[in-house]
């Protein structure tokens, strides 16, 4: 069974500081990996995704993530956070679609607070 662990429930970062959100996954084959962001009262917005190829992927809003197969990790990073980045961040893993079961399994989320 596939699973995702986000070890940090809540992280507080100063505006302008760098950010790294951790994500570890469990999946028996090559995974599809995603990071979504959710602002209060809103739906989930896709930040970036990894399928194959370059293990460092760039996303929207200045975010990037690095896939490390040996560590089963897909950590999200941003060099300098802005107050508008305060939100809940979800990592997700899914199967390669072959018209079978490809549901996304989400982690429990990391709430990011930005302080001035």
């Amino acid at each position: 069974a596939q699973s995702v662990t986000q070890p940090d429930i809540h992280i507080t970062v100063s505006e302008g500081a760098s950010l790294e959100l951790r994500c570890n996954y469990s999946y028996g084959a090559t995974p599809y990996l995603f990071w979504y962001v959710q602002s209060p009262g809103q739906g989930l917005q896709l930040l970036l995704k990894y399928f194959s190829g370059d293990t460092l992927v760039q996303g929207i809003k200045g975010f990037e993530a690095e896939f490390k197969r040996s560590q089963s990790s897909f950590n999200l990073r941003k060099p300098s956070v802005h107050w508008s980045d305060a939100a809940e961040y979800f990592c997700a893993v899914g199967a390669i679609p072959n018209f079978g079961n490809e549901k996304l399994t989400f982690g429990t989320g990391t709430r990011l607070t930005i302080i001035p």
Partner: protein
Amino acid sequence: DARVTQTPRHKVTEMGQEVTMRCQPILGHNTVFWYRQTMMQGLELLAYFRNRAPLDDSGMPKDRFSAEMPDATLATLKIQPSEPRDSAVYFCASGLATGGANYGYTFGSGTRLTVV
């Protein structure tokens, strides 16, 4: 930008009443998911469809929940009878999965359901 539209945004109902939530996926997307989000359980997959056919509804309580796609532009999630424990935010997501590639899923803004 193309959006997934969910209606209603908010719904308050009495226990025992029928609730229907609707989702208009992005035109051309062939995959539709229903997720439920609660503080205790996080994001749980209820059901998903490919080309309007249900592929997995194992996360859905079958005795009271039903999900359908009457046509390619409408997905519905129905609860009958509703119970207080069904109070949650219900998200619909759509995406395009073809040829082994998953292009990521777009989430709607959700329906916040309160059962009193």
